[in-house]
């Protein structure tokens, strides 16, 4: 085979494979969640910051005693994030506003296409048909890739345990409640019904209906409907979401879209490069044997004294 033909064949073959892979990659980004997935709509205009949801989560998930009681308002002085001991926290925003403070509950948002799941190389995470993103501590190696991958800064790491390092986060009460169609503990205890449990598709309609019926009460946006490909937890707010600690710079594409084009190249590299380089290697060898290695000859001549 001539060198030119060989390179031509490589180029054509490589392009074909690359195009095929990329098309497949694009198709995988259009997943809009399981049709029967459940979710929770958080109406921040209803929340009064009673922290009952935190207490209910603590008892339901058998988490350790909190540092202060669940009716201690001093925790609102600092913005908190979920930890391995508290799968959900309530933060206070806009407290200087005359309209009164706005409280926001934070927990795992249960993405349709979770970045934690994508980033996990031992498949410790599962997105269930019910919408929950659950976690298998038995296979987790404690690499904490999921903590870096999560766009909402949610998974908490159990730094106290040296022997069994595991990542902890809200699992939508999957084992004890969601599996049986029941709402999570935080939803059930909320006195203000700031949390509404139901099918995700229905909740999106409900959220837009609330905005339509009382437009003066809400900004016209349902956070989580489209962010990072959609999440099972949806939020309504009276002011811009950026004022309530939400990341409003997130794309509507799932996090995996940022890397899937690159990942699509990996099989191409693996399949073509060995053939390409062994071809080049053989070509060189062949030329050496035929005595056409004039470069080598000339080099040898040059080095002669």
């Amino acid at each position, binding site marked *: 085979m001539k060198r030119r033909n060989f390179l031509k064949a490589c180029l054509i073959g490589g392009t074909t494979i690359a195009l095929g892979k990329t098309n497949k990659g694009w198709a995988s980004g259009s997943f809009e969640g399981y049709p029967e997935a459940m979710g929770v709509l958080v109406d921040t205009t*209803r929340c*009064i910051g*009673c922290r*009952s949801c935190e*207490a209910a989560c*603590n*008892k*339901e998930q058998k988490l350790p*005693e*909190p*540092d*202060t*009681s*669940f*009716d*201690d308002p*001093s*925790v609102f*002085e*600092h913005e*908190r*994030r979920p*930890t391995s001991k*508290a799968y959900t926290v309530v933060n206070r925003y806009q407290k200087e506003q005359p309209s*009164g403070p706005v409280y926001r509950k934070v927990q795992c948002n249960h993405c349709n296409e979770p970045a934690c799941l994508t980033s996990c190389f031992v498949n410790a995470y599962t997105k269930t048909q019910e919408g929950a993103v659950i976690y298998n501590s038995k296979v987790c190696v404690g690499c904490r890739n999921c903590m870096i991958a999560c766009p909402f800064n949610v998974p908490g790491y159990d730094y106290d345990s040296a022997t069994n390092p595991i990542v902890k986060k809200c699992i939508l009460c999957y084992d*004890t409640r969601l599996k*049986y*169609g*029941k*709402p999570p*503990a935080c*939803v*059930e*205890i*909320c*006195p*203000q*019904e700031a949390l*509404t*449990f*139901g*099918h995700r598709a*229905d909740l999106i*309609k*409900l959220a837009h*209906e*609330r905005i339509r*019926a009382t437009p003066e009460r809400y900004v016209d946006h349902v956070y989580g409907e489209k962010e990072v490909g959609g999440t099972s937890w949806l939020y309504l707010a009276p002011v811009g979401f950026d004022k309530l600690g939400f990341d409003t710079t997130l794309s509507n594409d799932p996090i995996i879209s940022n890397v899937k084009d690159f990942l699509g190249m990996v099989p191409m590299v693996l399949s073509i490069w060995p053939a390409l380089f062994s071809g080049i290697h053989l070509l060189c060898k062949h030329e050496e044997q035929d005595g056409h290695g004039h470069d080598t000859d000339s080099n040898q001549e040059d080095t002669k004294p």
Partner: protein
Amino acid sequence: MSSYKHLIVAALSIGAISVSSPAALQCAPVPDSITLNPNGKLFSPFTFNHAKHIQSIKECADCHHHTTGTLVLDPNCARCHQNSSPTAVVSCKGCHSATPFSPETLAAKRADKQRYHLDKMGLKGAMHQNCIGCHTKVGNGPTGCQDCHPRTQQGAAFYSTNRKGAKPAHAEEE
């Protein structure tokens, strides 16, 4: 586990008056006081002073929307309820479900394609929003949880009340 579920359900079942028929409505005595949250496990039952609220509000429909008192004034509700007669049931629990998110309630909601009030609140949410909402609006009346119903011993354990004075929760994360 089951005892915890039980107490949540019990906390949800808030008692209220119920009047069985429109005929009875006219002669039914308006209660002076109503015991709310009668089987509460986390929060004790409390006596709602109905008579006092009638005196200060005077308008039944402010709380009992379209079930008794003057007809609805909200233009959105009036589209359908303008000419509605008072309903047979006046109590909150007559319309607002104590288990709004149970699998049965959700399934019934999905099956009924004709249903308009898809976003109807549950009993606990409706009562708390009615009470706390009005108390906040008029700037008069209790708005804290224990202002109305003090916690029981079980409630104190649930909210880890004894952990007061420990180091603040946020100190750890920094």
